[in-house]
């Protein structure tokens, strides 16, 4: 009875001024979320493109290695990869180079490296499919013009792949941005981490988590709009097709 009576009380008691006071701290958390997203995106795209090219060219041995890596990464939860990196890699590193003493990587580097490696598997799959969508004739035209492999990919193939794949790449990056909140397991302070720390200090859990939710909603729905625009842009130039 007392609890039921207390609840509406707590709700009417919402005080969003605590959010204002916590704002600078939340902002620094958001900054970290962005930094992690951008770094993981960069590492993921560079590695992912490399992986996709290795598979596309069916490079012996390497393409099998890449394929197993992608299968492995895609079948385990991200949080487990984070744990591995944080707890296991220092020990393994220590075994080989540190004379048995474990070499700590530190939570920040762990987060950057892990997210980069993890996303590489997903970006690679997206780019691989994109590469397959490019007509064989495009490669032949480049050969006939004596373009080098580098120029072929840089000037002809990749621009087409990125154009086709950009909506999916951006969608994946939105997921990445949301996933960065998992770094709380490493006690890093991203947006969610910042909110939860403030909430524990001032006891205003509802206000803090509501605010964070709104921030995520705003950013991700804006990005989703971009996805829609990219999708539309891709449809346009294929009107006349012989």
């Amino acid at each position, binding site marked *: 009875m007392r609890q039921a009576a207390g609840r509406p009380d707590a709700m009417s008691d919402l005080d969003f001024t605590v959010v204002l006071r916590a704002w600078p701290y939340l902002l620094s958390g958001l900054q970290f979320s962005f930094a992690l997203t951008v770094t993981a995106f960069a590492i993921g795209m560079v590695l992912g493109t490399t992986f996709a090219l290795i598979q596309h060219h069916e490079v012996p041995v390497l393409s099998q290695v890449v394929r197993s890596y992608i299968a492995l990464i895609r079948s385990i939860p991200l949080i487990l990869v984070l744990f591995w990196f944080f707890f296991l890699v220092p020990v393994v590193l220590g075994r080989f180079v540190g004379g048995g003493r474990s070499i700590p990587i530190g939570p920040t580097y762990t987060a950057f490296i892990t997210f980069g490696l993890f996303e590489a598997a997903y970006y690679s799959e997206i780019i691989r499919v994109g590469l397959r969508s490019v007509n064989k004739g495009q490669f032949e035209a480049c050969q*006939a*013009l*004596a373009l080098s492999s580098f120029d072929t990919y840089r000037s002809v193939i990749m621009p*087409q792949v990125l*154009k086709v794949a950009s909506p999916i790449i951006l969608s994946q990056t939105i997921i990445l941005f949301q996933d960065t909140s998992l770094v709380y397991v490493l006690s890093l302070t991203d947006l969610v981490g910042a909110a939860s720390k403030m909430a524990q200090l001032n006891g205003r859990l509802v206000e803090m988590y509501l605010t964070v939710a709104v921030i995520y909603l705003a950013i991700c729905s804006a990005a989703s709009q971009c996805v829609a625009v990219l999708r539309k842009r891709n449809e346009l130039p294929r009107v*006349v097709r*012989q």
Partner: protein
Amino acid sequence: MMTLRGEKIMLQPESDASGTQPIVMVERLVRRYGAFTALNSVSLAVGKGEKIVICGPSGSGKSTLIRCINHIERHDSGRIVVDGIELRDQLADINSVRREVGMVFQSFNLFPHLSVSENCMLAPVKVRKLTRAEARDRAMTILRKVRIEDQADKYPGQLSGGQQQRVAIARALCMQPKVMLFDEPTSALDPEMVQEVLDTMVGLARDGMTMLCVTHEMGFAREVADRVVFMDQGTIVEESPPESFFQAAKTERARNFLKQIIR
């Protein structure tokens, strides 16, 4: 009479080639796909400025033959020498041959993300190391020649099939090749667009370009070809000047083929 005429004209390319080496020489070329032999010991010499039309039923190996000449298709045995360079597996040789040999495809294969002028400028800038301004000048000159300079800033997707194919010809010409290969350049076109592409090719022939054309356009063959090469089942069955080929083909297979395409 028939043989006389045949011999007389057969001499022509040889006398052409007597002073200079043939620009394209194919010797006992073999290409297999698994158990299927696409090219079975094909030999062909093409002199500078010669126009060759290659025809034959589908699957006869005519496309494979010209695709071997710029090594888009690998050959299993035999020799190919283009402009004095023998095509082996060395990338440097392959690329120096490709720089001198332009190719036009059945499906155009223009770069859809680049404008018409950029399509023409890409290889001259990247391969011939021209500045963008030089490449642009050259592109515009050649686009004017194929009468499509007013479309220079459009994208391939905005052009008709015939226009796209003319751009593809211009793109190849911008590399200033010594030999042009045409792989069924009009087969993917709507009938009303065939002529504009053929006219462009005739113009090119008049300018003295060495051309190897896989095509079933017999009017074109009659007009510009020095020799018609008829292929069937991976071999060259007959090689004659167009007049004698069309009026009195020497082989049964060629006569049957002609009956099917000329109605």
